[in-house]
């Protein structure tokens, strides 16, 4: 019997097909890198009352913003909403993805549609629906009052709670779909092998399925986190002043107050914080996944 490990398959044709990335790369440079560059320069310009910005350069917008406790508060709230939405989406989405990956029932296709349904309705329409449900005279409060559980309406919107509920709803598919792909690639034989070796369902999940689904968890949580902290319409419509996030604040700076350079600085701060968070998270999860193939 051969005692040698199989030869590692060399990645063939290094450099072949490089031209295929050109269209996507061009698109990214044109519509992503260039605008960001222009926002970055704008954030370093002096403010002007007559034009979008004046000729001179300054870092005053950054120092002002970073010295402002109000902005730190909104930044903190944005990150907190992002974290809570991500955790909730993971807790709600994992069982659904697991079920979809393992079930062979003909009702699964119906469940697929349910999963995708938040994406099938326009953003604004969906947010209005949440307003109808969550407002003081909304469906939720009326139901609770009808059941005699409360005497006065609960504050379900115009705060972080409403934003969190609505964002979790809309971003659920973004964690379910990567997880689903990941879980489907895990052979059901592995769970059977684990049980045959004497591990309970729970132990099998914790020791086998969960570690192997970390790549899906990683991809899904990053997607949901990034989408949540950069969401605009939902916090703008459901957040009020109590649920204001960074993106809402940036738009208020730009549109309402016409403070383009300062708004640009806020946008850059937000993007930098997001990048720092995501790279820290990637590092942390990479450690947990270092044993995976």
């Amino acid at each position, binding site marked *: 019997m051969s005692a040698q490990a199989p030869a590692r398959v060399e990645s063939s044709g290094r450099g072949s097909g490089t031209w295929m990335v050109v269209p996507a790369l061009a698109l990214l440079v044109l519509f992503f890198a260039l605008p960001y560059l222009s926002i970055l320069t704008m954030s370093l310009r002096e403010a002007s009352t007559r034009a979008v910005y004046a000729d001179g350069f300054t870092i005053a917008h950054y120092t002002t913003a970073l010295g402002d406790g109000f902005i730190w508060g909104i930044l903190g709230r944005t990150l907190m909403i992002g974290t809570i939405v991500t955790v909730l989406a993971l807790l709600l989405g994992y069982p659904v993805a697991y079920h979809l990956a393992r079930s062979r029932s003909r009702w699964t296709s119906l469940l697929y549609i349910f999963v995708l349904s938040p994406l099938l309705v326009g953003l604004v329409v969906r947010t209005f629906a949440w307003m109808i449900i969550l407002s003081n005279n909304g469906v939720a409060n009326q139901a609770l009052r009808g059941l005699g559980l409360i005497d006065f309406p609960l504050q379900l919107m115009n705060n972080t709670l409403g934003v969190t509920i609505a964002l979790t709803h809309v971003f659920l598919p973004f964690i379910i779909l990567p997880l689903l792909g990941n879980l489907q690639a895990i052979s059901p034989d592995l769970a059977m092998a684990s049980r*045959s*070796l004497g*591990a309970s369902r729970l132990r099998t999940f914790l020791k086998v399925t969960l570690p192997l689904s970390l790549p899906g968890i990683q991809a899904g949580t990053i997607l949901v986190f990034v989408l949540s902290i950069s969401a605009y319409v939902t916090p703008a419509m459901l957040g009020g002043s109590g649920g204001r996030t960074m993106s809402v604040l940036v738009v208020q700076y730009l549109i309402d107050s016409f403070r383009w350079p300062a708004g640009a600085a806020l946008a850059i701060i937000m993007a930098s914080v997001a990048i720092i968070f995501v790279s820290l998270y990637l590092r942390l999860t990479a450690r947990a996944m270092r044993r995976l193939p």
Partner: protein
Amino acid sequence: MTALTIDRVNKRYGQLHILKDISIAIREGEFISLLGPSGCGKTTTLRCIAGFERPDSGRILFGTRDVTAALPEKRDIGMVFQSYALFPHMTVAENLAFGLEARKIAPDERKRRIGEVLSMVRLEGYEQRFPRELSGGQQQRVALARALVIEPSVLLLDEPLANLDATLRDEMRFFIRDLQQRVGITSVYVTHDQSEAMVMSDRIVVMNAGEIDQLGAPREIYERPASARVADFIGRSNTLQGEIAEALGGESYRIATSSGAIGAEGPSGLSVGAKVQVMIRPENIRIADTGEARHGDNLISGSVVKSIYQGNANQLSIRLASGDEMAVDVSGRTLIEPDAAISLRFAPGDAWLLAS
């Protein structure tokens, strides 16, 4: 002593009746193969034994313990899969430790048993490798070691060699059989490969469409198949239509066929006049003027239609006077002219009756 009893087990999926009243009694230390085409119920039977399927009716006993309702993790089984099913995020040692940890075996004892079983499968020194760093054959040996290290009461193997290439598969057959004999573990082996079942098993369960066609030792199944279906599934065979002309006592009969009267053996108790099929294996037929004829041999004449030279053997196709064609295997050295008239001979003991 009976180690594993499958007692009148039925299983349905909706309208499909997958297992129809399956009963098998497996002795301590016995190697049993469940053999049949895909969809015959062999894998479902194995999963019922493992506890991943629950029979609709019937019982499964490990020794005298009724495990019909027990969870897989409570059954004390070792299982080997076609896909190996090694945990990809664990090293070989961790894969082997998995079942021992679930059984709360102390670390020292764990280490000792892992070392022991790794030397049994000849993979000493591979403890720190990951499954992806091993060849298919090595992975399957680790899977085997993982199933054996917990010292289960039954070893279940689900087509474990199907993913290996032909040479390695032949080697692994003997490796698994040898290991099973040394450990003395009761084993149930699922396969669709009849030669695999033949060389490895103490007894074979031939299954078809949820039923057991025949249960017996390999020799019995090959030489004394219970039906034409079993005869066809295990090896090549010729059949002649006939009618019982005379019962000669015991298993001996005289059969009237369109190619003349021949002597044959069959299950005792067949009555004169009954329609039967006479089954003769190609390798048991000889050319009449070669070798030593024995008294009582059957003689049939025909002409050579086709001769396929295979080196060690010549596969002949012979057309009988009745129009039936017969496959005959002769030594590769025998020179055969096409269209030549030929006379064939076979012993009555090599002609077996199948009720039609």
